[in-house]
């Protein structure tokens, strides 16, 4: 059943009247959620102005994880040295960060990337997308109180992390995709393991669907909650599943193409308001679930058509782009991850600005959570899928 909650616009300031006619002023409470809090997904401080259980205003305070990576980048003697810093921005989807930065520098250098490298980059990025969405879905479930899907998602993520460890030795922060190529070639046995994973993954995702997706309680917690209208989403530059959940058919892999995504057969998933309004938390959740299946398809296709070649042949010995600037954006699991790199002709970057999708998506939080209840606020923050490393850089 659809629950609509209308909040009169002067809810806060309207005084009540007691039976003897005296005015009764109800106070709002200011509550702090965070910085350490089990459900704000990192060190985020939310200052909530509450009237009973209804949220009147939310003021996010960030900066607790600010590590000034942009200043560090300016002091690096080599463009490749920035890649470990970029890894640590969104630590849950490192491959995508590496690739976005590499794209920006490759555009400045006007580099031609070999096909094998492109395929490997697609495979890694899509595996990373699945891993990141698994965390997003798992932690979202645990915020809602369903403890079991969290562990199922992490079990599947362990298999992806094993694949990554097989390739480059690291489980979380890879330093894998370099400017001009990748650091290691795919090891023998990788293709079979990845194919096995994609096949098993579909069954385990079906279990999560059974427990969560059409569960009545889950729907009651997430449908019609945190509705993000289309024009608000575009005006506030939301991207990724937040934008697609609001019904906007926009995916940078297809619409601002990079890599070899145009060679494969895959679909863009958008939210259609199946169990509630278009743009509610359920839509964002289902967009992420369906995107994982699309990523599995992409990985299988990329593995099937993997060409031969040397993955390090295009890595330049010295990176010294001519003076200029470039902004290149790519589709990370959280949205549009862009890097604006200014080069002054020397070997170290002049300015590197990371446009983090979680930073931008988080800024829309006050707009969509006025009038919600505190429990809904947890659902909304979970559906934005923030990673504080990216928000604060």
């Amino acid at each position, binding site marked *: 059943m659809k629950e609509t909650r209308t909040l009169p616009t002067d809810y806060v300031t309207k005084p009540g009247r007691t039976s003897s006619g005296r005015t009764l002023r109800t106070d709002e409470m200011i509550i702090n959620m965070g910085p350490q809090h089990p459900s704000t997904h990192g060190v985020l401080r939310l200052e909530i102005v509450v009237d009973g259980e209804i949220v009147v205003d939310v003021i996010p305070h960030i900066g607790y994880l600010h590590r000034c990576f942009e200043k560090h980048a300016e002091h690096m003697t080599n463009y490749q040295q920035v890649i470990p810093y970029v890894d640590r921005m969104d630590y849950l989807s490192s491959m995508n960060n590496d690739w976005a930065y590499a794209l920006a520098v490759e555009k400045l250098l006007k580099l031609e990337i070999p096909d094998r490298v492109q395929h490997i980059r697609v495979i890694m990025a899509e595996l990373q997308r699945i891993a990141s969405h698994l965390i997003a879905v798992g932690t979202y479930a645990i915020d809602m109180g369903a403890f079991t899907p969290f562990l199922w998602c992490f*079990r599947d993520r362990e298999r992806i992390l094993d694949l990554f460890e097989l390739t480059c030795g690291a489980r979380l922060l890879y330093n894998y995709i370099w400017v001009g190529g990748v650091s290691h070639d795919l090891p023998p046995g990788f293709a079979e393991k990845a194919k096995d994973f994609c096949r098993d993954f579909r069954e385990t995702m079906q279990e999560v669907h059974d427990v969560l997706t059409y569960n009545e*309680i889950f729907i009651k917690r997430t449908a019609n909650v945190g509705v993000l209208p289309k024009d608000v989403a575009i005006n506030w530059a939301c991207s990724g599943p937040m934008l697609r959940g609001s019904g906007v058919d926009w995916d940078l892999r297809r619409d601002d193409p990079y890599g070899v995504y145009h060679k494969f057969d895959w679909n863009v998933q958008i939210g259609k308001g199946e169990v509630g309004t278009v743009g509610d938390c359920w839509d964002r959740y289902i967009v992420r679930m369906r995107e994982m299946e699309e990523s599995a398809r992409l990985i299988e296709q990329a593995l099937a058509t993997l060409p031969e070649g040397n993955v390090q042949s295009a890595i330049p010995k010295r990176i010294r782009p001519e003076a200029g600037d470039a902004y290149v954006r790519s589709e990370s699991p959280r949205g549009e991850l862009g890097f604006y790199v200014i080069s002054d002709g020397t070997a170290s970057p002049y300015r590197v600005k990371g446009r983090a999708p979680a930073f931008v998506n988080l800024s829309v939080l006050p707009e969509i959570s006025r009038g919600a209840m505190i429990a809904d606020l947890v659902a909304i923050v979970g559906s934005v899928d923030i990673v504080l490393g990216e928000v604060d850089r």
Partner: protein
Amino acid sequence: MEELLRPLFSDDYGWLLYIILAAPPMVFILLYALITVWTEMKISAHMQDRVAYMYTGPHGILQPLADILKLIQKENTVPAAANKPLFFLAPFLVFIGTYAGFATLPFSSAYIGSNINLGVFYILAVTSIVVVGLLMAGWASNNKWSMFGAMRSAGQIISYEIPTALALLVAVMITGSLNLQDVIRFQEGGIQNWVVFGGSLPLAQKLPLIPFTAIAFLIMFIAGIAEVNRTPFDLPEAESELVQGYNTEYSGMKFAIFYLAEYANMYLVSGVAACLFLGGWSSPFGDFMSGPIWGVFWIVLKAYGFVVLQIWIRWTLPRLRVDQLMYTSWKVLIPFLFVCVFATGLILVL
């Protein structure tokens, strides 16, 4: 059991008799809590595709003991600005409310703590003390989040008392007594006599009753989960929102008492549902496997089965938001129960 022991005590030592009669539920609660902690750990682990503790004893059997030892020797931190008398008193009130309910819960045909005529009514009344304890815990912690948890919890428990009482009313109307021993004796003789299947009434009255008693039983179970603050109704202690709700500032032994009280409450609610609807200590086979000792086996089996069901549900379902929780109680469960009560009354009269 009171009749057996009374001759052994002279009048001066009558009070000792009462202490001995009151002890078995306490011993039972402590043993049962240990076993249930282990059960919950293992069930949740296997549902989540992992194994739980395997090192402390074979398959982690000694883990609950280790947990208790840890809780006992932990530092009892008290927030500086907390209201100390209330802070100290709150966990005890919560436990007292639950333990007092065990007084009229039978464990077999021979043992019931206190054989008063108001058995079930007494349980319903005295478990409301838990609300006072929770509110004290939330308020005295001097923590906005604890207070939130306490307010939500008070509202939830009070709201779900009503479906419990109405479902109870269905069973009481059929069996004609509030005393739980009489209710169970009414259901003696086999599974077909259980109230959930209509009670030991003539067939013409029994068959139309079955849908209503089945629904009343289901709703009693659901309201019971809400009374205990278990998922899907565990918003007051929702870990992801309120850290621990009213529990936040408690550590060490006081937290252990809250924990113990929660498990005891789970058993109490399951026990009441088992007695009222599923025949209590009577055997489902009629005379086979029945008797005072077998009675203990049957009632513990039935009540513990429901405890396991509560554990299973906890690890499967997400939690309801507080207004949805209230909506469920007032606008869904209570109307269904009104229909059940009315229909039961009608069928019994006609």
